[in-house]
């Protein structure tokens, strides 16, 4: 059974709810005085507790004169959120500002506003998460999955509870409700009242739709039909004078979209066709990568918001810290620009870069060979990378090849294979060492110059998008020295750590950085490269 992740539906959901915020704020700003500054709504005291100072900031500590700047700030954040995922703190700010504005104008708030307050809260856990160490990684995965399912259930709950309330009334069960609403001057449209049969049919249709929606969306054959019915229903309710409520429901729909719909509807914004476009689909958020919930940072960790080499000697040799820091910086710089869609990690090991690309891609396939020193629970395909890859033509959008190419007897063959499996406009992101001692022997065959890399890529049919040196002479010297002293019988490891630390410090200074840049062309520690399949 193939599995589908929800990275794309989450991305579109986050875009949609921020688009709703933009719509709401732009439509509300002309009546800012009545809504927020000198509001018609009587003061609404919040429930006791510390959250009151967030949800009811206006009226507790924030002067209402600041409502318009607050709305403007929220508008800026919402506009940003339409295009790029917000960081956790920005998402928290968006939620708190929105809720405080909503409660300041509570008389104008509808169920749609409350729905949005709820989904914005849970969206905090869906957006890019806090930088974390290995221990917190698993907890965050649980929180993210919980938030995802709560948002999905929230939509169902809104329909289900409304339907139950309506079933306990008289007008809905007797087919009168739409007629009554249509003749209400505040809602309309009045012309419907002249057609009692139509209003009765519409009343029952709405009731049936709301009762069945919570069940129908769980099954693939009915999901699409009911969601289209929902779109029609909510667009129709715009004519009842509740556009914000109607749109609030609609913008939550993408959380229930299937990835393949999004690929079909928005091919340019969503990457190319998904690899699992046909066949049964198992809905599991954990399925971004095999055993994703077991993943733990190894070679690279995120510290203070920055990806860098691990300082745990079990995960990374003490003499490799500077090298790993350089590699991590390279990947962090390019992944955001180029990683998308279906990613294949060739020679994956423990998939050390998963943390860096997991929010950018929709599916991760891991390949490695049997001789690897890094047995991984995430492996999808076990094979020698020197042989034809067991993947279909144009079946991925991004390939990661980290510290692998030098271990292949015939690297050109892998280049050609990568070109074959990559979809058009897809990218290969790779790095290789240049000044590095023999490692993982006897499978250490090559060191490549920039000219060799460039020629090999072009011969395989790639366009070289980026080719940069990673580190220069200071890093090379630090690397060689620390590897030399590491094996001293007494204090060698401490000395190696010190050399690595000093190298890291030196190349962080202005003069160290200049020296590194000046010498990088001639004495690089390694290379980072981005290739594109035209």
């Amino acid at each position: 059974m193939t599995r589908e992740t929800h990275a794309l539906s989450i991305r579109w959901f986050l875009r949609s709810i921020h688009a709703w915020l933009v719509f709401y704020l732009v439509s509300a700003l002309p009546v800012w005085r009545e809504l927020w500054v000198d509001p018609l709504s009587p003061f609404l005291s919040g429930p006791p507790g510390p959250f009151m100072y967030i949800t009811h900031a206006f009226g507790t500590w924030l002067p209402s004169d600041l409502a318009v700047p607050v709305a403007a700030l929220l508008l800026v954040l919402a506009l940003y959120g339409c295009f790029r995922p917000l960081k956790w703190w920005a998402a928290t700010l968006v939620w708190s500002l929105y809720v405080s504005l909503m409660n300041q104008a509570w008389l104008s708030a509808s169920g749609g506003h409350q729905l949005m307050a709820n989904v914005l809260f849970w969206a905090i856990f869906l957006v890019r998460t806090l930088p974390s160490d290995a221990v917190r990684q698993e907890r965050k995965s649980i929180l993210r999955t919980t938030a995802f399912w709560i948002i999905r259930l929230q939509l169902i709950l809104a329909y289900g509870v409304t339907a139950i309330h309506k079933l306990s009334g008289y007008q809905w069960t007797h087919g009168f409700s739409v007629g009554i609403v249509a003749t209400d001057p505040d809602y309309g449209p009045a012309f419907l009242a002249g057609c009692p049969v139509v209003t009765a049919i519409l009343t029952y249709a709405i009731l049936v739709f709301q009762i069945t929606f919570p069940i129908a969306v769980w099954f693939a054959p009915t999901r699409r039909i009911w969601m289209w019915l929902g779109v029609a229903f909510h667009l129709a309710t715009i004519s009842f004078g509740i556009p914000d409520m109607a749109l609030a429901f609609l913008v939550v729909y993408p959380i229930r979209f299937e990835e393949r719909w999004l690929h079909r509807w928005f091919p340019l914004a969503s990457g190319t066709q998904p690899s699992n476009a046909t066949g049964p689909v198992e809905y599991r958020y954990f399925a971004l990568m095999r055993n994703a919930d077991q993943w733990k940072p190894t070679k690279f960790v995120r510290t203070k918001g920055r990806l860098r080499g691990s300082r745990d000697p079990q995960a990374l040799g003490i003499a490799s810290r500077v090298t790993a820091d350089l590699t991590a910086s390279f990947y962090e710089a390019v992944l955001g620009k180029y990683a998308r869609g279906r990613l294949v990690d060739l020679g994956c090991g423990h998939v050390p870069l998963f943390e860096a690309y997991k929010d950018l891609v929709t599916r991760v396939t891991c390949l490695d060979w049997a001789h690897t020193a890094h047995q991984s629970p995430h492996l999808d395909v076990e094979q020698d990378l020197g042989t034809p890859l067991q993947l279909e033509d144009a079946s991925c959008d991004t390939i990661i090849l980290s510290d692998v190419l030098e271990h292949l007897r015939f690297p050109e063959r892998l280049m050609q294979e990568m070109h074959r499996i990559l979809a058009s406009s897809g990218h290969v992101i790779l790095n290789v060492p240049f000044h590095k001692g023999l490692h993982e022997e006897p499978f250490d065959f090559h060191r490549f110059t920039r000219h060799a890399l460039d020629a090999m890529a072009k011969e395989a049919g790639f366009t070289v998008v980026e080719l940069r040196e990673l580190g220069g002479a200071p890093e090379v010297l630090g690397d060689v020295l620390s590897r030399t002293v590491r094996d001293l019988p007494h204090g060698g490891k401490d000395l190696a750590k010190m050399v690595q630390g000093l190298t890291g410090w030196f190349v962080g200074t202005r003069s160290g950085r200049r020296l590194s840049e000046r010498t990088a062309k001639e004495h690089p520690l390694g290379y980072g490269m981005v290739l594109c399949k035209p």
Partner: protein
Amino acid sequence: MPISRNRLIVVALVATHALLLLAYTLPQSWVPTRLQGVAQRYVRPLFHQQWNLFAPDPPLCACSIEVGLSDGIWQPIISPQEHYLVRRMARPLADHIHDRNQHGDTVVMPVLAQALRRLTRDLEHPSTVRFRSVSRCVVDPAHPEGRSLEIIELVLP
């Protein structure tokens, strides 16, 4: 197995949240009193929501407030062309005043009177205007177009 454990945690968290939301939003007669109390404490601060728009029945009375100008003309306090958010705010004000009228109280609560004055502050002589509550109620739900008219003059404190 880590997957099973994580899945169990997620299922427990989602189920608890959904249960408490249901206890908070379902008709009160459906939910045990004790659970209602727990749900109130959990949901009210951060996750408050109501799903009662047009439920259990749509409002039978369309209530509005009209303003009497010095020349004897009455006009709606909120014009139908007014911004939809402002119109929506005026409706609960009118509904609330109408409910109190039904109990014989024609003196508007100070906090609502303040809101009515804010709505009329842009008129030429806002201090001289009079207010009245107008409700158009459905008499026979099978023929909702025929609505009875009730007008009650209001006293602002």
